[in-house]
């Protein structure tokens, strides 16, 4: 390989057919005299502009577009040299760092010698060694392109905002399961909003047996094994549900606040008493109707109960998880849109409450297709306010434009799977921890189950890795008609 040119932080390197370099690979451009080296990443591989190639190609097809048949007597065997030159490639590389005295700096202000520099592939383990990423809580994501293991540290997810995105069936849920399982093993508390019932079997192996995490996976299905009593909810959370999920108007909200206060004072916070109080409450008929309709919505969703014994699972699960680590899977499959919002409002309110009271240390929240249940104002809440309470969110989506731009800007880690749609790539490339060229060029060519890891987890060295397989029971498969 030979250094060809540098423009800004883009370096072009000439590579020959016997040097197999692919998009995503890291190269070390070492200048012996300077005693410095550039770490560059290949973001595109192009044909080198070799003079005469067009003539060469045209010459091979002069017979009406068909290959002209013949024999080449090439006693000096020049033909392999022609092929060698013709197949030379130009590697478009992005400068990632400078190595000087075994330490890294983001500088790209110097220029290595074109004639004297040596260029070699930089194995991922060496890169990570240079980047000093040897944490104490390793999570092996899979294998990098050079077959070395790609291991991140769980602490790089701690207190961070993460996004897992990519086209359908590229392996997003698989990666999120992998992260969850590892976090649980490090005794972290994980809460998952499981829209399609994909995470229900995190405690089972692929052949249906219990795995080591079995006792740490708590599946809560709203209205079935997961109910709450009004007493547990608290006015603040319930108002959140009424206003944001059930769109209760302001005047009615004020009346509801009064009703709630009265019931609480009388220790009558039950569904039945709430209904009776609304019925007999002295207020405008329209307000009463509004309150009644919301009351019926709460009753009909089946999520609320007056039986305290039925409503202890979430607290129990959180308590268990807080000590030994565990994943609380909120199964939102078969739940209507409104009920989903009610449940999510409750869970988020409950988590903030528990974190505020230091009942919980911190929670890793995994939210799949969050736009389907997260109200508008929560997005900012999650990335700013809730982070300070200790809710560290990972958004998982195949529609990157459903996540707001400011979320991308503040994301600490992005795990990007294949995207071919330009618009989707545009959206993701707005993330501040990555340059648009890298995203556009590499993500477009990622095969299924390969992800481009960006951000703090990989010390801002974008790395392509094949996500490792998990011995978990597959759930949430698409129901098919023909098979």
């Amino acid at each position, binding site marked *: 390989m030979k250094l060809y040119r540098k423009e800004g932080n883009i370096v072009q390197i000439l590579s020959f057919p016997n040097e197999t370099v692919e998009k995503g690979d890291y190269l070390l451009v070492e200048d012996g005299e300077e005693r410095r080296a550039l770490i560059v990443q290949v973001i595109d591989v192009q044909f080198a502009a070799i003079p*005469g190639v067009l003539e060469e190609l045209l010459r091979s097809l002069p017979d009406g577009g068909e290959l002209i048949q013949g024999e080449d007597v090439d006693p000096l065997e020049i033909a392999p040299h022609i092929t060698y*030159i013709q197949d030379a490639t130009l590697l478009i590389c992005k400068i990632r760092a400078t190595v000087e005295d075994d330490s890294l700096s983001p500088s790209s202000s110097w220029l290595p010698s074109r004639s004297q520099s040596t260029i070699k592939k930089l194995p991922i383990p060496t890169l990570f060694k240079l980047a000093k990423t040897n944490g104490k809580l390793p999570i092996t994501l899979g294998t990098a392109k050079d077959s070395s293991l790609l291991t991140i540290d769980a602490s790089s997810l701690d207190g961070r905002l993460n996004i897992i995105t990519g086209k359908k069936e590229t392996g997003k849920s698989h990666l999120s399961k992998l992260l969850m399982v590892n976090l649980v093993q490090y005794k972290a508390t994980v809460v998952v909003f499981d829209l399609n019932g994909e995470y229900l079997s995190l405690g089972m192996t692929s052949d249906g047996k219990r795995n080591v995490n079995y006792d740490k996976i708590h599946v809560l299905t709203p209205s079935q094994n997961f109910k709450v009593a009004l007493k547990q909810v608290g006015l603040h959370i319930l108002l959140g549900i009424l206003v944001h999920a059930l769109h209760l108007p302001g005047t009615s909200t004020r009346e509801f606040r009064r009703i709630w206060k009265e019931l609480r004072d009388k220790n009558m916070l039950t569904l039945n008493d709430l209904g009776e109080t609304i019925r007999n409450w002295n207020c405008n008929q329209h307000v009463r109707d509004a309150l009644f309709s919301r009351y019926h919505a709460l009753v009909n969703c089946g999520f609320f109960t007056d039986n305290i014994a039925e409503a202890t699972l979430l607290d129990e699960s959180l308590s268990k998880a807080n000590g030994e680590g565990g994943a609380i899977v909120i199964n939102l499959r078969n739940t209507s849109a409104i009920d989903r919002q009610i449940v999510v409002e409750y869970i988020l309110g409950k988590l903030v409450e528990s974190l505020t009271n230091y009942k919980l240390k911190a929670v890793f929240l995994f939210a799949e297709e969050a736009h389907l249940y997260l109200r508008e104002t929560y997005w900012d809440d999650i990335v700013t306010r809730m982070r300070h309470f200790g809710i560290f969110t990972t958004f998982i989506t195949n529609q990157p434009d459903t996540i707001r731009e400011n979320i991308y800007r503040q994301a600490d880690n992005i795990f990007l799977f294949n995207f071919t749609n330009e618009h989707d790539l545009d959206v993701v490339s707005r993330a501040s921890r990555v340059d648009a060229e890298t995203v556009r060029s590499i993500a477009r060519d990622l095969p299924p189950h390969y992800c481009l890891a960006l951000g703090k987890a990989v010390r801002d060295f974008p790395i392509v890795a094949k996500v490792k397989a998990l011995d978990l029971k597959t759930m949430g498969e698409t129901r098919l008609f023909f098979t």
Partner: protein
Amino acid sequence: MDTLLPQQFTQLSLQSLSRSRQPFLQLNQQVFQQIGIEEHLQTLKLKLEPIFLHPIHKGTIVAATDTSTMKIAETNAGIVIAVRGANIWKQNDSYRYTRIGPFIFHITEENRREVYNSLEKSYFNSTREPIHQNAPNLAQMPLRIASLLERWLQAMLTKTVSNGVILFDGSLISGTADTPIRRMSEILSRGRERGNTVLAFSKMTTLRVNGCLITDLALDYRPPYLLETVGLKLKAPMLPLGEVYVAKLGKSNWAFRLDVDREVPSEQRIEAVGKLLGNDLVSQGYPETLRLAHILCTFTANEVLAMQHFITRNCGLKMINRPDMHRLLFGPFGRGESYS
């Protein structure tokens, strides 16, 4: 097929390169083009009565040969040249080719005689031919070596094709340094023995009538047709072995000088051109087979790079850029050697 010459080409090529132990100077590649210097006496006349041609579609092989040479580097002692040739023939509506080379030679003042004489001797088994005591000078060597290869390829065609039309690039003038009369006569004679007719197309000519190039005379006839010339006399020792015509074979504006083996009867000459029209594509008045022969042997820039890569790798020689003296001396006013 007689393969002595290609073997000798290979052997001498490797020998000449292996003896070199000095860095090669890279230069703007120079393509050598053979332009016939035909100092003819002012006796040439053109018959203005055209011979109209009719395509003869009777299945006839059309074959052509061409060679190419190029100086690819310079050393302190000499030059590095590459030579390649191609034979191409059209049969049953499809083209086939045999391409030979490239051969790379490092020609120096010391080895030029040895290289040239060895090639001459080995190739044409020329016990009858006198070996040149004075081999061509360095500047002439690329064309002379290419000519040797071209004659050999032409000889191969005349030995292998039967009842066909064989196309040469250039003229049928002999008696020049690279085309001795006997050599060209033998090639033509062998062709005739196998029922072939040799047609030689010149892309450029110096033949003039009344001061005007014979190919520039615009006549208002509907092509394809030939115009016959008479009275061509060349300065000794040059001898035309062909009858010279102006061939306007297509509707384009271009006419070409066409030499047809003069030992062939006049009717057969015209018939051969008819067979060419009936069996080959004629685009812009030029036969496709000959065009392909030229295309196949011409060196592309990519191939030049590959050959330089070959000599760097296989002979341990280093390519260095030759300073452009025009640029060095005259700065922005130096036109550079590419213009020189």
